[in-house]
């Protein structure tokens, strides 16, 4: 296990040499960035396709040599080392198994390559088989397994190595059915809590990122936009991009004018005291926007700003109500069974409003 440090890492693809694992045409560059991820954490790199997250992952694993900067494992510069020398494991989007080998031989493969004694290999393989619930399939040929079992094998080849510095995941659940996704992800989470491997997980799916990781790194166009706990990303997105990208549906972002400690949307006045502190004063803010999560938008008969309902999407466990407020569309999430008022008044949960200037969050004065 290792602490992973990225120092002034940057990457630029040469023209014509696109990222092999992606289907889009433009190469995914990474702009200069510094990061330090302490040992034993579960990290997620989250962003839309083309944001450079896979490029960054491949730089960490050593499959890709960065144009600039260095990668440090436990303070040791490993930039020049191969993936094998770095001692990392990686699980890819499509399960990679050695088809002609049995499940057990697949798991033993990395250990045999490293010339471990047979007895050690057998005991390690046996324990990983149990860990992943694959005991009964140990002697089947890997190619005869279902896709989720194959993905377990790819993961198992990382877990089987005792000395592995980090396990990296590149959208590992993309090809898995929804129900099995839950199963595999919680299994992964359990393994992480039990063995405290450093895990780095690349995904475009915010639910996966938030539920898996202790710390989520949100990327956009080759840069890191925000690093934080799932809750921080949800409650205090540093950038409107993060607000929109995280959450389903994402945060409502509506332009507003700020006067003193009041945001003005159309002719409505919304107090910002609860969010930004009682001594907040506008000091010439430009291009201001108001961010509010649909979860924190309340619709009632009595109090609030009058709005008109434009659409209702009932998705079972909750209802998404779209309303027009002063010419801006606003989404509200209502729990199952909650009544939808016909002529709703909109109010925002106090303290949950975020204010943005030029898309960047205005922090509350402490």
């Amino acid at each position, binding site marked *: 296990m290792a602490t992973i440090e990225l120092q002034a890492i940057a990457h630029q693809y040469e023209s014509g040499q696109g990222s092999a694992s992606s289907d*889009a*045409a433009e190469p995914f560059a990474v702009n200069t960035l510094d990061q330090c991820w302490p040992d034993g954490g579960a990290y997620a790199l989250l962003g839309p396709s083309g944001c450079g997250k896979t490029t960054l992952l491949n730089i960490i694993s050593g499959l890709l040599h960065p144009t600039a900067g260095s990668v440090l494992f436990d303070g040791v510069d490993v930039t020049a080392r191969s993936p094998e020398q770095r001692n990392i494991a990686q699980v890819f989007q499509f399960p990679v198994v050695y088809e002609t080998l049995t499940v057990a031989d697949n798991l033993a493969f990395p250990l045999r390559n490293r010339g471990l004694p047979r007895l050690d290999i057998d005991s390690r393989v046996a324990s990983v088989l149990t860990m992943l619930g694959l005991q009964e399939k140990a002697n089947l040929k890997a190619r005869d397994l279902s896709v989720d079992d194959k993905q377990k094998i790819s993961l198992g080849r990382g877990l089987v190595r005792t000395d592995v510095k980090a396990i990296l995941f590149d959208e590992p659940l993309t090809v898995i059915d929804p*129900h099995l996704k839950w199963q595999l*992800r*919680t299994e992964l989470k*359990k393994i992480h*809590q039990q063995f405290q491997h450093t895990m780095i997980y690349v995904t475009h799916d915010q639910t996966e990122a938030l539920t898996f990781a202790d710390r989520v790194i949100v990327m956009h166009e080759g840069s890191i936009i925000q690093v934080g706990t799932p809750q921080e*990303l949800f409650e205090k997105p540093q950038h409107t991009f993060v607000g929109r*990208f995280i959450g389903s549906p994402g945060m409502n972002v509506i332009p507003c004018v700020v006067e003193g400690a009041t945001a003005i949307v159309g002719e409505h006045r919304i107090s910002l005291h609860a969010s930004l502190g009682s001594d907040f004063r506008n000091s010439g803010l430009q291009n201001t926007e108001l961010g509010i999560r649909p979860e924190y938008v309340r619709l009632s008969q009595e109090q609030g700003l009058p709005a008109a309902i434009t659409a209702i999407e009932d998705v*079972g466990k909750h209802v998404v109500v779209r309303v027009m407020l002063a010419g801006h569309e606003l989404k509200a999430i209502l729990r199952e069974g909650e009544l939808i008022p016909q002529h709703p008044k909109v109010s925002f949960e106090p303290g949950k409003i975020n204010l943005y200037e030029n898309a960047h969050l205005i922090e509350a004065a402490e």
Partner: protein
Amino acid sequence: MLELLNISRKVGDEVYVDKVSLSLQRGELNILLGPTLAGKTSLMRIMAGLDKPDSGSLRFDGRDVLGLPVQKRNVAMVYQQFINYPTLTVFDNIASPLTVNRISRSEIASRVGRVSDLLKLGDFLHRRPDTLSGGQQQRVALARALIKGADLVILDEPLANLDYKLREELRAELPGLFAEMGAVLVYATTEPTEALVLGGNTACMFGGAVEQFGPTLELYRQPVGLQTARIFSDPPLNTLLLHCRHGELRIPGSGQSIKLAAELHDGRDYTLGVRPHHLSLVRRSPEDIEMRGEVTVTEIGGSESFVHFEFQHRAWVALIHGIREFARSEVVSFFVQPQNSLLFDQSGSLISNSTAMIMTQ
């Protein structure tokens, strides 16, 4: 209208489609929901005329179309992979279904213009598909299906290869587009959330058979069987097998029993199903059924927590609003309101989801 009656197809010993009967209306979205290998693609291939069923009949607008090859059926298909002509521009790609039909150039241009506006492709008409993002490439494929004016439009997991946010965006747009088409629309997906967002009608498929077909929300709220309830639950449905004694089902560990207005048969097994978001950490009424379990792992979403716990040797999960963290092995009580519990008999048919009486001893 597309009518399927007792359609079956076997390949070797494997049943791909098992006695499927469906009646699909024009202008409505019909979703086939089920896990991989449930038979969705096989059934759609039969609808399109790419495969022939072993038995059953297939009628389109009252006309028997069984045996009519796909070329004669005016079908459009959109696949999971973004399939476009790589050497043609976006304009020519979208126009391709029209050019084989001898339509005047100005007519083609105006129709492509309309469709590309609808799908927000207006700025890319002169580019090649491979210079576009995945979402845009799939829009081109959708535009081709749209412009064709097909009688039957088949979409086989069209959003599966797209980013989460792009998926959300297209899901919101698709119902409007579909309403434009006036064709019989069939849409396959593995994701219950997708089905619920798209609305329309859903057929729940499992093992080649359709367990239930009807308005999507109705299937979600009133599943006739265990498979539909399972398929429609995300996170997965929690289940517990209960054995009936003295006409009642005892919930282990809580001292509570379920009794029904309808008869429960002694000696039979029943399955209790509870959706994760119906589990709560607080008791809201004395009738709430209590489930005590040992926490295995907690996952924190942005505003909600997924608490995984072991209940009677089964893996259960509760979706709790707010951030709640529990230590591993902590014993926690969860509660479900009786009207939110689903009870299935041995064959997997729903007995009740509202008439349960909870007795506390």
